[in-house]
């Protein structure tokens, strides 16, 4: 691990409480309020903004370093995920636990893909649009978008109809899914490792 990376990682970690403290401090103030308050509040607001900006740039730099540098990745992520490879047996068990985690994560991802692609809707149509005298329609769709598209039109169309039951993809944000998967990876690996070490 390069000395610069090590230093920046420390700055990132020690800066975290400062960023949190700043976030708590500025919570009651917005840009206008702080501008009107003047004095030390305005100075602190500006300084906090600078610290937060620097911390954001640092976090992007470190996450890119994690991708491109194998050594940095191993040093940092091994600590975060509590990976211990003190001898050959632990190396083998780490491999088995990693395999188990990878396969379960893949299974979860496939399940999430199904949930995010499938759309189910049960709605009532107007009597003039009835099909064979039936006004209750069950609509099934598979929707896959590589890019996030604006589905406002489709939503408005759905809202105009009398929806009884409607399901259109995962009701959670992509950030929540990513965070959930990160936490899952760490928990799953450690659970598998503990089971194998017994």
């Amino acid at each position, binding site marked *: 691990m390069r000395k610069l990376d090590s230093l920046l990682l420390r700055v990132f970690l020690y800066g975290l409480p400062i960023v949190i403290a700043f976030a708590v401090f500025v919570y009651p103030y917005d840009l206008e309020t702080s501008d009107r308050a003047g004095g030390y509040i305005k100075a602190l607001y500006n300084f906090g903004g600078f610290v937060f900006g620097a911390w954001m740039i640092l976090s992007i730099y470190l996450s890119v370093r994690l991708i491109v540098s194998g050594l940095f990745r191993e040093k940092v992520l091994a600590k975060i995920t509590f990976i211990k490879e*003190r*001898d*050959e*047996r*632990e190396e083998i068990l780490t491999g088995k636990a990693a395999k188990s985690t990878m396969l379960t994560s893949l299974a979860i991802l496939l399940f999430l893909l199904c949930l995010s692609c499938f759309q189910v809707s049960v709605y009532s149509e107007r009597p003039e649009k009835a099909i064979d005298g039936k006004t209750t329609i069950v609509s099934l769709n598979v929707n896959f978008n590589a890019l996030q598209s604006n589905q406002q039109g489709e939503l408005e169309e759905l809202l105009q109809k009398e929806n009884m039951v409607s399901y259109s993809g995962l009701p959670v944000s992509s950030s929540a899914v990513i965070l959930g998967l990160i936490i899952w990876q760490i928990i799953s690996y450690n659970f598998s490792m503990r089971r194998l*070490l017994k």
Partner: protein
Amino acid sequence: MAKLAAQLKIINRLHIFRAEHRITQEQLAKEIGVTRATIVAIEGGGYNPSLELAFRLARYFKADINDLFSVEEESK
């Protein structure tokens, strides 16, 4: 061919060698450069060491590797 595919069981006499040399699992682990859990696992038959580790153990006890580890066919 069927004989070669039969399940083999590795028998080790590590605990006997250790007792003869009056050395604890912890001490042996330190000397060999592994964790105590690995020595426990080898002695209990839960883990078969790599060739390298097997030779390191044999060298430590100044024994032939065949005296330390042997193979027998597992009955079904």
